[in-house]
């Protein structure tokens, strides 16, 4: 690794005092490069303040072209009806549902990183949570497009909501499809709130560095944040509450998505293993997408000191664990098909692996079960090219998982006369391509206008944010405290008003 030296203060604490305060002190430092608080602010804020680089415009051009394709395809679909897609008897759920589950799954990493890892005091989340949450929001938006337009009559899509109406028509509360509406929309709202609340201190930092209209706009979104102690208190309370609210949602959303399948009586869908298996798959694909994006972003934006190889390695370990869980679920399904002695279930799985869609099944198995096993090797899970390639392979695999589940179970109907082979149409393909356009358009806007790393939180995991002046009262160390304060880098003292924040940066104690 790069410079392994810790911050000077940490060195002082460790070597001279032998002062082991927290077990995680044994871990490599979360922020490398001996950055001061001010340098961290500069490093992140600079990318929202500099002149827009030409490469950004190029990337944005490509992404927004994709977005235009999406708009065109949706307009074409609305004008002509759902028939322009490949969905038909017996495969009534084609690509739109596959893409929906694919995108919702990707949308799981953000809230897992921000909420669950927050509650478990995994402080390495701070460098990646902002971008991961943004990715979550955009992925959920992409996901919502598909069921919205799959209903066919998109202009009456509000029928999915239980709004009193003169038709006396209510959604079917017994249907998991309705639970989906609630699960995904509440997930989106809570994720958005969570993301925004976390942004407020950073927006205030940007505001204090900005002038003119930009400062006004930022001031509006910073909601009058001054960095006062009371603000931090309220902020940390609300952040904790939102983390508590979001945590069950991480598990519930994809469980409910899996109910869309598991509640039915289709062989291959009707299994109780679906909820945990879908949640594991969602985290698997979500982390892969975070990796794909961050491996590139940290390089381009020079954030290697904040998003370090250690962060990436930790994500790779999560990919390895969840990938193995998913693979275990695939094998369990076969075991259950055999053990249950239900011939339809057995047929469904043998047909999956050796039937007309065997190619898709084995792509899924290779990408999701076999390829992440490479991460057992430390060398490979710390290799940027390997993890970048694997993260893409994983998402290809996870798309195929949803394709295999949806299509192979449906194409062999209970009525053999309706058996058929599903093929997508060009509209299916271009709509899916267009959804990536939407995703990357939003993500590029995020990279350009929003601090892509949680500045205040990253400062909070620096050792000097947590000096423990009075932890060991009476053991003689309290006396050393002023010494630490003096050792603060000179730049600290001159820093702008934004660094009022720093002195009370969030601690996790």
């Amino acid at each position, binding site marked *: 690794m790069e410079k392994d030296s810790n911050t000077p203060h940490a060195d002082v604490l460790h070597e001279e005092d032998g002062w082991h305060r927290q077990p995680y002190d044994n871990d490599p430092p979360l922020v490398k490069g001996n950055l001061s608080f001010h340098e961290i602010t500069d490093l992140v804020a600079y990318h929202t303040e500099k002149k827009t680089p030409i490469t950004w415009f190029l990337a944005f051009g490509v992404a927004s072209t994709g977005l235009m394709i999406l708009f065109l395809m949706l307009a074409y679909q609305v004008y002509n009806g759902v028939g322009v897609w490949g969905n038909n008897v017996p495969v009534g759920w084609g690509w739109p549902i596959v893409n929906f589950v694919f995108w919702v799954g990707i949308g799981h990493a953000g809230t897992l990183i921000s909420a669950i890892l927050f509650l478990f005091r995994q402080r390495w989340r701070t460098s990646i949570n902002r971008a991961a949450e943004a990715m979550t929001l955009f992925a959920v938006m992409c996901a919502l497009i598909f069921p919205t337009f799959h209903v066919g009559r998109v202009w009456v899509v*509000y029928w999915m909501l239980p*709004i*009193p*109406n*003169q*038709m*006396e*028509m209510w959604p079917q509360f017994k249907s998991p499809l309705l639970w989906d509406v609630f699960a995904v929309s509440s997930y989106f709202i809570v994720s958005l709130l969570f993301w925004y609340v976390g942004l407020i201190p950073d927006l205030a930092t940007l*505001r*204090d560095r*900005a002038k003119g209209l930009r*400062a*006004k706009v930022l*001031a*509006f979104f910073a*909601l*009058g944040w*001054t960095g006062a102690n009371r603000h931090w208190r309220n902020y940390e309370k609300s952040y904790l509450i939102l983390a508590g609210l979001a945590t069950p949602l991480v598990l519930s959303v994809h469980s409910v998505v899996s109910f869309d399948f598991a509640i039915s009586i289709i062989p291959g869908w009707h299994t109780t293993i679906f909820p945990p298996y879908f949640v594991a798959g969602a985290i698997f694909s979500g982390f892969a997408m975070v990796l794909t994006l961050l491996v590139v972003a940290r390089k381009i934006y020079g954030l290697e000191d904040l998003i370090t190889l250690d962060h990436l390695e930790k994500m790779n370990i999560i990919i390895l664990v969840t990938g193995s869980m998913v693979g275990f679920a695939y094998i369990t399904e076969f075991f259950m098909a055999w053990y249950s002695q239900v011939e339809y279930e057995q047929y469904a799985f043998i047909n999956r692996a050796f039937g007309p869609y065997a190619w898709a099944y084995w792509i899924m198995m290779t990408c999701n079960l076999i390829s992440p096993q490479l991460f057992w090797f430390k060398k490979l899970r710390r290799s940027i090219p390997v993890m970048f390639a694997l993260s893409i392979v994983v998402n290809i695999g996870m798309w195929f998982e949803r394709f295999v589940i949806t299509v192979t179970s449906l194409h062999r109907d209970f009525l053999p006369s309706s058996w058929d082979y599903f093929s997508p149409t060009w509209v299916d393909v271009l709509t899916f391509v267009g959804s990536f356009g939407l995703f990357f358009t939003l993500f590029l806007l995020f990279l350009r206008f929003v601090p892509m790393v949680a500045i205040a939180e990253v400062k909070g995991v620096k050792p000097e944010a947590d000096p423990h002046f009075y932890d060991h009262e009476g053991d003689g160390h309290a006396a050393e405290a002023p010494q630490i304060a003096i050792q603060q880098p000179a730049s600290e003292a001159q820093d702008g008003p934004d660094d009022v924040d720093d002195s009370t940066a969030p601690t996790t104690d």
Partner: protein
Amino acid sequence: MPQLFPKKANALPLLSLGGLVVGGVLTIFLVWYYFSPEFTVVGYAPTQPVPYSHRLHVDQLGMDCRYCHNWVEVSNHANVPPTQTCMNCHSQIRTQSLRLLPVRESWATGEPIEWIKVHHLPDYAHFSHAAHVKNGVGCETCHGRVDQMEVVYQAEPLSMGWCLECHRQPELYLRPHDEITTMGYVQPADFVERNLERIRTEGIQPPTNCSACHY
């Protein structure tokens, strides 16, 4: 950067919460009323190619609905009469009327008159006239006082909620078999008891499950 928000902006969270509640209720009301067929389609009265007057034919001449809509008791559709039905009388009566010119032209050329449909149901809702007429639902109940209409208009919303009102409590709407086509029918005093008795003996069970109409 001085503070953008004045002190009184502290009221904003509470105000926006109130706004959310009021706005939510208002939205629901707006959807409930303005998105409903009661607002959007009741009163729909297109101009027909022939200025045919139901008031003249039904009220003044006393014709029965079934003279023209003769399949209503056996078919899903209460048919719009062909030109031939008009010509049964109009080959003898008002043979030179200018207003009947399109009818005579249709008669001569064999091209049907393109009447404009007034009562639309969505294509995903199936409805049988026969099933209703045979079980004691009067024409008037759904179509209103056609005998008073110079130009036919939609009198009722034909929305699902409106259908269900009767399907849930048919005893409030049924009438005797010989009063089906009567216009301006007045229910006798004890009609609810009579209808309940009929519902029992005739086994009238209007379905309220989805697939009764959506199949």
